[in-house]
């Protein structure tokens, strides 16, 4: 299975490389929207800080947010959704391997190629805004683990939504709805800790925080040990839930599928 994944990855990587400029432009979407809120919060924080956060902490939070945003983002509505709509999925179903493996390779390839423009951009922004880090090695390690889980979680959710294309023509609208919740409840407009009580409690229960914000909170060291453990626990629960969701949707969808075109 790993060998097959490698073949898919090399294949996808090569095809993405041909369109690298386009992919670099897409990567900017992981950077520019958080830059809006980075600016807003650093302006508010000014010299004295706000709600216990200093200016430099906001900078560190949002710069890491940009990286995690890119590394966890789901592109399945464009790749898988499109395959279903134009019937390309039919050929993939004939291979003796689940088409999801190819989609996963495509997802990883997209992220790998974006890194080449993302890292210089974030370093440049770091030189301009000057972040303040106050974190520990164990928290960074947990952040790495949490980023992987978040990426997998977003992949599974994105895949499930893309599979809705089996039944409806506007699955992209469902995905748009999903990204609106990600904007509001996954630490983009403000770090979760700064949300009003009601929203913060909702954010702690709903999956969105675990799809994007939790790794950022871990990397920046804003969580204490018990909050980190609880966060990772809930994140794993959502991952399991997403796994069952995608399996259920896939089974029903494939039975329903009657290829478009030939």
């Amino acid at each position, binding site marked *: 299975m790993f060998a097959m994944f490698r073949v898919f990855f090399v294949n996808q990587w090569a095809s993405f490389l041909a369109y690298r400029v386009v992919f670099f432009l897409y990567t900017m*979407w992981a950077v520019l929207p958080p830059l809006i809120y980075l600016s807003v919060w650093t302006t508010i924080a000014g010299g004295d800080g706000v709600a216990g956060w200093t200016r430099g902490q906001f900078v560190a939070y949002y710069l890491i947010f940009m990286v995690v945003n890119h590394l966890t983002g789901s592109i399945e509505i464009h790749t898988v959704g499109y395959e279903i709509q134009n019937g390309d999925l039919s050929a993939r179903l004939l291979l003796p391997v689940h088409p999801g493996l190819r989609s996963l390779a495509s997802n990883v390839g997209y992220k790998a190629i974006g890194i080449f423009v993302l890292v210089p951009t974030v370093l440049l922004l770091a030189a301009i805004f000057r972040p303040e880090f106050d974190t520990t090695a164990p928290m960074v390690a947990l952040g790495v683990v949490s980023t992987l889980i978040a990426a997998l979680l977003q992949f599974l959710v994105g895949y499930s939504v893309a599979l809705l294309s089996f039944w409806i023509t506007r699955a992209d609208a469902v995905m748009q709805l999903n990204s609106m919740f990600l904007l509001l409840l996954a630490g983009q407009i403000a770090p979760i800790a700064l949300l009003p009580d009601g929203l913060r409690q909702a954010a702690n229960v709903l999956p969105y925080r675990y799809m994007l914000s939790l790794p950022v909170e871990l990397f920046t060291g804003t969580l204490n040990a018990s909050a980190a453990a609880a966060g990772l626990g809930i994140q794993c629960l959502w991952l399991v839930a997403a796994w069952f969701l995608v399996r259920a949707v896939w089974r029903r969808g494939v039975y329903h599928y009657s290829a478009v075109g030939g």
Partner: protein
Amino acid sequence: MRRHFAMILVFIRNSVQNEFAYRVNLIVSVLLTLVGMVGAVGAVLVVYSHASSIQGWTLTETLALLGLFSIMSGLLNTFISPNLDQFAENVRQGTLDFVLLKPVNSQFLVSFQRCVVWGLADVVAGAAVLVYALASGMGEGVGVGDVLAFGLAAAAGTAIIYSLWVSLATVAFWTVKIDNMTTILRAFFEMGRFPVDVYPLWLRRALTYLVPIAFVTTTPVEALGGRSGPVVLTVAVLLAGAMLYASTRLWRLGLSQYTSASS
């Protein structure tokens, strides 16, 4: 001029008839607009729960600006971007020939041929937020002159957006494969949902001189609050005129490069 106006009406009627074949899209779009607007207003409220004013901008002023941003975004999604997205495809496939054969200015036809009426939901939602902001405090002291200045600045802003999109789309004449170039423009446009004053100086300069989004939302709302003087308004109008002119020049230049794809 009257002929062009009549044609735009025909294009709209045509598009509405087309779009109404997909009625579920209406519900989906309205739902997305509503959720998006609640989210956008929520974001502003969260920010202002930690500050009473940001760089001199109060909550109601920022809400008014968000309303205008949503109106602009709706116009962009209804009229400008559906057409110019199609344009890149037309150049690639050579179907631009059909546009050029018609006895009408080609830039006009390419810019207004189709519209996606659902984008107007954003215009309505944005207008509602703008009116709410005016009704809850910001409206005090706003005179007829301020409203006229706002209208003028907003019209200039619309012209600037249009020129930016046309200019970048025109690049397709040379590169053929550029359909995602407007992606970057849209990411900058998104920055218009907050007053440019919240951005650091270098970014504010970029948003004023490089990609002049500052004139699209910030200047009109400042005019409404009586904060931008005649100088800024004049600059906005002159810039809009210059950019419109430049975009038509660029269009002609690009058109002379066009050799069609195949036949």
